[in-house]
């Protein structure tokens, strides 16, 4: 630990100032537009926004999809991360590589692939009909289901990776210790693994939730105008309606949602440490 304060600030401040100027100021100004009117500060833009049923619906849908994607990513993420962590080192490295791989591929292309996969003549429908689960092709495209699947595929890797690092930091031998004390696998998960990896779940959860709220491509392409989400609505408000006040209201909502998720989850995480 060095103690020279001036040196420390000289090193740290450029980054902070850069973030403030490029980020904080313009974003702050944008958000403030939602609260301004000719008469001064007001909440009327928010009242107007929520008075439209479409907007209410889009808001709730965004929230719902965010929560669902996060929950699904958590469940699948645990199973996958646990399986990966128990692999021998070489195979583990390769698996992590495969998990990270989708992050390297343009989300534009990834999303278009789903159009092919989820179509009426796509693989999923062919499989479903082959197995006999349905006679008629199921319509996936331009439904919330499609957006859900697209978002899940987009963000699952982030959850898996956070859970892998959490599981790797699981105190050595805690799981075998619980086994020896008589716990079956289900009990081991609930009583040992889950509480001890909560931080990883929270980090992953925040990333997935925030990501789902703010993704643009996936809802735009897989949902289209039938499954508007806040992000696509914002884009529409700006480009079609030229309505910057509504845009800043949506921006504000998005930021508040991601911040609250972040803070809420962090609260839960630290509550455990404080106790």
């Amino acid at each position, binding site marked *: 630990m060095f103690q020279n304060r001036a040196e420390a600030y000289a090193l740290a401040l450029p980054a902070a100032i850069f973030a403030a100027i490029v980020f904080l100021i313009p974003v702050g100004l944008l958000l403030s537009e939602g609260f301004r009117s000719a008469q001064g500060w007001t909440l009327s833009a928010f009242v107007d926004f929520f008075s439209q049923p479409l907007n209410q619906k889009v808001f709730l849908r965004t929230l719902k999809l965010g929560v669902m994607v996060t929950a699904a990513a958590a469940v699948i993420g645990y199973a996958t991360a646990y399986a990966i962590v128990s692999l021998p080192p070489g195979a583990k490295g390769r698996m992590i590589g495969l998990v990270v*791989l989708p992050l390297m591929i343009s989300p534009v*292309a*990834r999303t278009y*692939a789903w159009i092919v996969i989820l179509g009426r003549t796509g693989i999923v429908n062919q499989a479903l009909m082959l197995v006999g689960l349905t006679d008629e092709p199921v319509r996936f495209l331009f439904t919330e289901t499609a957006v859900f699947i697209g978002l899940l595929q987009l963000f699952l*890797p982030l959850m*898996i990776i956070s859970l892998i690092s959490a599981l790797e930091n699981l105190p050595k031998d805690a799981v075998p210790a619980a086994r020896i004390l008589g716990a079956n696998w289900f009990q081991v998960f609930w009583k040992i693994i889950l509480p001890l990896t909560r931080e990883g779940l929270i980090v992953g959860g925040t990333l997935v939730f925030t990501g789902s709220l703010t993704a643009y491509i996936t809802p735009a392409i897989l949902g289209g105008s039938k499954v508007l989400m806040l992000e696509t609505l914002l884009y529409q408000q700006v480009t079609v309606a030229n309505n910057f006040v509504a845009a800043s209201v949506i921006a504000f909502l998005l930021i508040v949602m991601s911040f609250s998720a972040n803070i809420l989850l962090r609260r839960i995480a630290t509550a455990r440490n404080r106790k």
Partner: protein
Amino acid sequence: MMQKILAPLTLALVMLFLIGPFAIIVAASFSAGDTLAFPPQGFSLKWIAKVFTVESFRQSFAMSLFLAIGGTIAALILGIPASYAMARYRLPGAETVRFMVSLPIIVPGIIVGLALLRYFVIPIGLSITLALFLAHTALILPYAVRVVSASLANLRSDMEEAAVLLGASRLGAFFSVVLPNIRGGILSAFILGFVTSFNQVPVSLFLSGPGVRTLPIDMLGYMEIVFDPSVAALSSLLAFLSIGIVFLAERFLGFSRYV
């Protein structure tokens, strides 16, 4: 016993889900048909070839490459000293700094793009290219700080002290001892930043102008006009490029330790 069957099965299904779309894209790149379809209709290299003939792809590829490389370098120039300060100094307000530089992860990209357009580009006349550059730098900054911080944390600070005791100045110790030892972390940050910037859509959505747009936006635009497999071909090419780079980085630097 249960693990013996269940774990591989889970892994196989999840990997199928994660990698499957990529396979479709790759397959479509080599298709002879005129639309994205699976299974692909015949085999040809025509779409791969076509990618190289579309002029706007070349332009926007150059733009994206510039943003990704330039933005990442700028973010590292800002981020490395900041990480170092937070790791090695007793810095009052370190949490605030950390929060500030990590903001870009929490704030939706589309808002950043819009805000820059509205308050910098329009009133001040900042060029779109510069605005994109600033936005991408800000976006990469959190990753740069996170990865570099992690590698600094793994590096014992007494090495710098040892260098000083052997006669080095503080700055000398940083360059001769710290920098060479966080090279792996810096390269990982570079790759992570590069990939993030290169695939970034929302930030760039509003920040485009005549002749100035990033590759993903251009691909999006292209797809909106012509729905042929050339975008798939382009994505495959780019993906293989990234995978190649990451593979080498992992091979030689243990990249995944920092992600």
